[in-house]
């Protein structure tokens, strides 16, 4: 039998429900806050175990608190995800059918692109040809805003990418649906959308931008870890989170 949850676990889980996703630093702060609020034993290095206790109870409900890396800043995040797809889960009321169709078309565009982004122009174009019900330009912009607000998409200068929360929840689905297009990162082996690619046509491996930064840090002659060819891209700096305290 899985151990029962204390109030501290329940408060942690409720905060995950409200936020959907939180970064590692916030998760650690939340862990401490929940334990202290309810007088539960707190050990700063036991966050993973704390979450495992919750996950054991969530599993029969097809829910899970998952750990993953952001393609953008390379930091660790925790997300509460749904794992079931049934007649019941499809009754979810957050988005209408045509809004979901727009989201899936956006996913298609993002996965098909070289750099893991889709321009708002391209997304607006496919809003015109939705099978369920067309969306007007203003409606489309409104839906895209909501998708960003709800943390399913990221937006930067009019370009949209899949959020960390989205990739963490849908990784399996993305691998299955786009098995011919999608590649995994040569370094961390997760789905790679926002990434750099080896230009050797017989190689063509992909590496996440933050993984590139870490892997090539301090190397003067960056070479592809698979084929040894010169790595022709700009090597970004390793992202440092603004010191949280």
């Amino acid at each position, binding site marked *: 039998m899985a151990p029962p949850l204390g109030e501290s676990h329940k408060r942690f889980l*409720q*905060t995950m*429900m*409200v936020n*959907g996703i939180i970064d590692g630093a916030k998760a650690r702060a939340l862990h401490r806050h929940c334990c202290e609020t309810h007088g539960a034993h707190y050990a700063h290095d036991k966050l993973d175990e704390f979450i495992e206790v919750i996950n054991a109870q969530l599993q029969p409900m097809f*829910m899970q608190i998952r750990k993953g890396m952001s393609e953008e800043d390379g930091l660790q995040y925790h997300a*509460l*995800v*749904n*794992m*079931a*797809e*049934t007649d019941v*889960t*499809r009754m*979810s009321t*957050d*988005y209408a*059918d045509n809004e*979901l*169709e727009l*989201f*899936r078309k956006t996913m298609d565009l993002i996965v098909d692109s070289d750099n893991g982004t889709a321009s708002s122009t391209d997304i607006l174009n496919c809003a015109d040809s939705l099978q369920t019900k067309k969306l007007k330009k203003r409606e489309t912009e409104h839906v895209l805003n909501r998708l960003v607000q*709800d943390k*399913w998409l990221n937006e930067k200068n009019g370009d949209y990418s899949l959020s960390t929360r*989205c990739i963490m*929840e*849908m990784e399996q*689905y993305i691998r*299955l*649906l786009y098995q011919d297009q999608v590649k995994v990162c040569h370094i961390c082996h997760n789905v790679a959308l926002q990434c750099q690619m080896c230009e050797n046509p017989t190689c063509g491996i992909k590496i996440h931008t933050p993984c590139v930064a870490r892997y090539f840090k301090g190397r003067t002659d960056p070479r592809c870890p698979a084929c040894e060819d010169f790595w022709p891209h700009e090597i970004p700096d390793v992202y440092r989170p603004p010191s949280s305290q």
Partner: protein
Amino acid sequence: GKEKASQLHAEGSAFDPAAFAEHLLSFMGLNRLEEEDEDVEGGASGGYLPQDAWQRVANRAQCCFRTAPSFHYMMGSFLAELPPPRQRVE
């Protein structure tokens, strides 16, 4: 109706919705205009509210509500059909 209301007031402080609104406006961060606005009878006082005015009230009022958090997800909200078989180019 009316009698009951005045009875209620006799028992303690009266509650005046207009005064309540004025206090709320201050709490919301009303930017009162420099020049003294002449308070029109029953009208709103001058000035403008900041963008986050209602957010402020909500943040403070949130602890009065024992609202259950809701669960939101993307995976599972639509039929995850696999792609149609690729068209063969003859």
